[in-house]
């Protein structure tokens, strides 16, 4: 078995108004990676290149140990791909789609498909055009999961869903993905979705990957410190402080490499550390994007 399910090395793609620049990405086998970026950041382009649907201008792409896009047919036998833009045939029912997919993938698991059907509360006989968006996405997920792929690539599967449907899909997805050893690449601009499911997080912005790590490391490293200053003089950033917000003698600073030394350094300056808070993935993402964009200016 390959150590990495997906490996991108120095991948670039030029468009008239957008560039994907020097993408390096490695997804270890058995891991779930959340691929996070704003709309238009380059998530879908990267995923299309991974799936062999689009050719990179330069760089190497290896999926399940085989080169893309040259081996796309063989690779896609072992990859379950679902994207937000994907639509099933409205005039046919889910049962028809299941038969079609089953005829293609020998690994299709009837018992598991039946279980998913119940878990997702989907009607086999109902035409796809009568499905709500949430049901449509669940149907797509059923079709990719029941074929038991070695790699699952989900491009913004919950985008456009109302909060209730999104939570439903996410809960089911979280349960399903914990069921078995799967390698998953899951893209979203919604950090809450990613935080729930992923082991690894990769951030992309303006066509470049700017941070990638396991979720625990992100949550450990990124902290907010609530400070009380001895005076209302502007607080000067120290060491790994990436963001400072100050109102009079109260300040909140964010660090991307938290250690106890930071607390001690403030205390040595007669600054009272009122609290050390964890950040949500959304806050980490936003602070990280701001940091990167400031660096670009």
């Amino acid at each position, binding site marked *: 078995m390959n150590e990495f399910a997906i490996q991108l090395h120095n991948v670039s793609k030029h468009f008239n108004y957008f560039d994907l620049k020097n993408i390096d990405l490695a997804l270890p086998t058995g891991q779930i990676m959340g691929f996070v970026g704003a709309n238009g950041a380059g998530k879908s382009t990267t995923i*299309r290149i991974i*799936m*062999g*649907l*689009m*050719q990179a201008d330069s760089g190497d792409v290896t999926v399940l140990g085989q080169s893309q*896009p*040259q*081996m*796309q*047919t*063989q690779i*896609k*036998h072992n*990859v*379950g*791909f*679902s*994207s937000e*833009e*994907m*639509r*099933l*045939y*409205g*005039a*046919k029912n889910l049962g*028809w789609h299941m038969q*079609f997919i089953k*005829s*293609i993938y020998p690994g299709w698991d009837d018992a598991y498909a039946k279980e998913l059907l119940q878990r997702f509360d989907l009607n086999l006989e109902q035409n796809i055009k009568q499905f709500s968006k949430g049901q449509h996405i669940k149907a*797509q997920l059923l079709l990719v999961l029941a074929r038991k792929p070695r790699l699952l690539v989900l491009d913004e599967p919950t985008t456009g869903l109302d909060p209730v449907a999104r939570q439903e899909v996410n809960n089911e997805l979280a349960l399903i993905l914990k069921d078995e050893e799967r390698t998953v690449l899951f893209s979203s601009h919604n950090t809450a979705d990613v935080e729930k499911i992923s082991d690894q997080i990769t951030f992309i912005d303006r066509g470049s990957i700017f941070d990638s790590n396991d979720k625990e490391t992100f949550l450990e490293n990124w902290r907010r410190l609530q400070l009380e200053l001895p005076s209302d003089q502007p607080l000067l950033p120290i060491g790994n402080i990436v963001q400072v917000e100050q109102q009079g003698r109260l300040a909140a600073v964010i660090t991307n490499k938290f250690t106890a030394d930071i607390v001690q350094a403030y205390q040595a300056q007669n600054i009272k550390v009122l609290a050390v808070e964890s950040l949500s993935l959304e806050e980490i993402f936003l602070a990280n994007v701001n940091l990167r964009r400031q660096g670009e200016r």
Partner: protein
Amino acid sequence: MLTSKINTPMIVKLIAKDWHLYKKFMLGYCALGVIAAGIMTLPTDFSFHLGVVVLITVLIGASAHVLFASIVIEKKESQLSFIMGLPINVTDYALSKLLGGIAIYLTCWLPIVLVTLLIFTFSPIPNGLIPMLILCALEILVGTVLLLSVGITSGSEAVTIVTMVIINLLFNVFLFAVVRLEGIHLHMAAETAVFNQTVMSLIGAGVLIILLIIAVTTYIKSRKVCFL
């Protein structure tokens, strides 16, 4: 560059999938075509001409339906994204659409043409018209194959519509041109069908054009590595 060999089982599955999606419509067109052929046998000039117009309309309508439903709408409604995720490459997809489109269209074209030929044979309509009927039907078939090819290679709804309009205009030009050929018009009122060199040459040319379109489309698409 053909990056990997043609995946024949997948091509067959994709064609079968399209057949399941469009078979009801094709059977509908088939029934309409047979009715049109029946109208042609009614004993008035008006009914004959009406039957001809309906027959041609049905054949062209079925052609447009196959093209738009299986290629243009599939792309527009993002079902192509679903298909692209399956273990196929661009050539597999193109072949499934081209050969599948032709096969599905033939399921209504062939019965309509055969029934019309039978009706011509056993009705007072002069059998001399049979070669003209075959040539017209073949021209519509060539037009369908060309349209499928343009739809597949361009991937553009606008280009496909413009091509369709041009092909339909050319059908009228074809009718006028063929009727003026001596080898055709001299035998149209005859009691028996005459398959002379002119007719056979035109049939041969039609078949050759179809084969050429299939070959060129396959070549063009096989040079494309990725779908997007």
